[in-house]
């Protein structure tokens, strides 16, 4: 141990020297630190008394603090402090705050909600939040949909109907569109004729001769397209069969094709494969009746409501 260390007289060292003269002080802990340490020990004892803490046998100390909340049945329940009880109490508060709006939503019909300036403002913000979380992954943030997968909700073309009641029905029960595959029922010529006919309905350049025979097939018993899409091909909303006479497409990627022949090919392949993947989940069990009402008005107001 090097004796020339000046401070070694006043401050204790660990008694070990490295490299000849490197030493380590051995100061006592600062008083404030020691007392803070004692305070944390006292704090933890108080904490044990207030909150659930020590296990004893097959149970545990529940602590002296408790929480009171009102349950679904309207009864007041008191429980020892725990995060679940805390959530129930917090939900009571959140419901209290939302009540002025949600009880109005529950009490009014769709038109009244849309007309009332205060409520429609609420629907717009709450509806947007609900839509973003639950619907946007499929129908996209603005409701514009994805061709080949999910319908556009902003236009006035509806598979199942754009009235408040129909939209509400869609949301509560979900939907599942089904068109059979015709690839093995009809021959290539017939399918081509039908595709040309369907193309002709929305003004796509087509072969007039094929379209004429397609028209006959469309309403014949062989193809029986008319059964779902109707004689006029304007569709049947009770079956989710779309209007084929407008320029709006969901399953056949007509807008994505540039040349008329590619557009017809897209229609052809839809007829061949049919459509059996349009699944709109049911929300009746996932969302509350008020939330679904808010979403109904929100979707209706996206632009296409009827």
């Amino acid at each position: 141990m090097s004796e020339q260390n000046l401070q070694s007289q006043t401050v204790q060292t660990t008694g070990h020297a490295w490299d000849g003269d490197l030493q380590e002080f051995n100061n006592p802990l600062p008083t404030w630190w020691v007392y803070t340490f004692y305070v944390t020990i006292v704090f933890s004892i108080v904490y044990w008394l207030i909150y659930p803490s020590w296990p004893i046998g097959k149970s545990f100390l529940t602590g002296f603090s408790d929480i009171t909340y009102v349950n679904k049945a309207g009864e007041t329940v008191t429980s020892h402090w725990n995060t679940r009880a805390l959530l129930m109490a917090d939900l009571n508060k959140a419901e209290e705050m939302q009540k002025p709006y949600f009880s109005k939503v529950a009490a009014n019909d769709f038109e009244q909600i849309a007309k009332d300036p205060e409520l429609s403002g609420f629907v717009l913000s709450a509806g947007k939040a609900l839509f973003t979380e639950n619907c946007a992954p499929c129908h996209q943030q603005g409701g514009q949909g994805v061709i080949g997968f999910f319908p556009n909700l902003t236009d006035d073309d509806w598979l199942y109907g754009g009235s408040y009641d129909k939209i509400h029905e869609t949301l509560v029960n979900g939907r599942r569109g089904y068109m059979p595959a015709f690839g093995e029922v009809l021959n290539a010529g017939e399918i081509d004729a039908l595709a040309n006919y369907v193309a002709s309905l929305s003004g796509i350049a087509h072969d007039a001769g094929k379209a004429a025979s397609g028209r006959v097939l469309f309403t014949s018993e062989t193809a029986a397209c008319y059964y779902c899409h109707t004689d006029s091909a304007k569709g049947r909303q009770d079956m989710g069969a779309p209007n084929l006479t407008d320029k709006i497409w969901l399953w056949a990627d007509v807008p994505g094709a540039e040349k008329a022949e590619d557009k017809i090919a897209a229609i052809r392949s839809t007829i061949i494969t049919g459509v059996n993947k349009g699944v709109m989940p049911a929300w009746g069990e996932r969302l509350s009746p008020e939330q679904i009402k808010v979403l109904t008005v929100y979707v209706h107001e996206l632009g296409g409501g009827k």
Partner: protein
Amino acid sequence: MRINFKHEWIETNIGLMLVLTMLAISVGGLVEIAPLFFIKKTVENVEGINVRPYTPLELRGRDIYIREGCYTCHSQMIRPFVDEKLRYGHYSLAAESQYDHPFQWGSKRTGPDLARVGGKYSNEWHVQHLIAPRSMVPESVMPNYPWLMQLLDQSDIANRMKALRAVGVPYSLTEAEREANVKKFGAEVAAMLHIADAKKNLVEQANLGNYDGDRAGVSEMDALVAYLQVLGTMVDFTKVDADELVRSR
């Protein structure tokens, strides 16, 4: 003999310090963790909760979920907070992951919590989303998993179930175990949990559900989507007394 204890003994004796540190930590762990295995209420035993083990197909889906590291971005634990309840639904129960070995709770949420994702989307959406997330959600940062369309290796399904059985999951090997499952879960579920029929059950469920939209063979996608679609759907909370759940904590 008087023992004159000095803290320096520990500080200057690294071996002793190591042993004592480990002792202190183990006491903490024993007091905090071990009792949970003995306190009956840990796994909620409340009327209306009857969680079943995964079917063979779902189980393989879960293994793929773990293999692909989905848990590095997704938790499966809805905490009892208002905002989580509003976004994800009812808070997760311990009972819901009682057959999960290892559990997938986690706390890292680059993507949303998946504890109740079952039924939220269609199979079609999941398939597209897993192959190319940005085709469904343009701003997503989730990686593409195109290889999930490859065929599922079903050869070791019975062994996987046996391994879980060894840690307490009630997959049945014997007739007595099978009958116990019929009592507990009903005949239909019990048939699914019988190890001898694992492969047959796996293929049947995949064919019936056609989760990946492709009839040719059972793919890893079939298994993963079957798993995702069952997450959080086993408890019908309209049939469970919410106050009982509070009381079990």
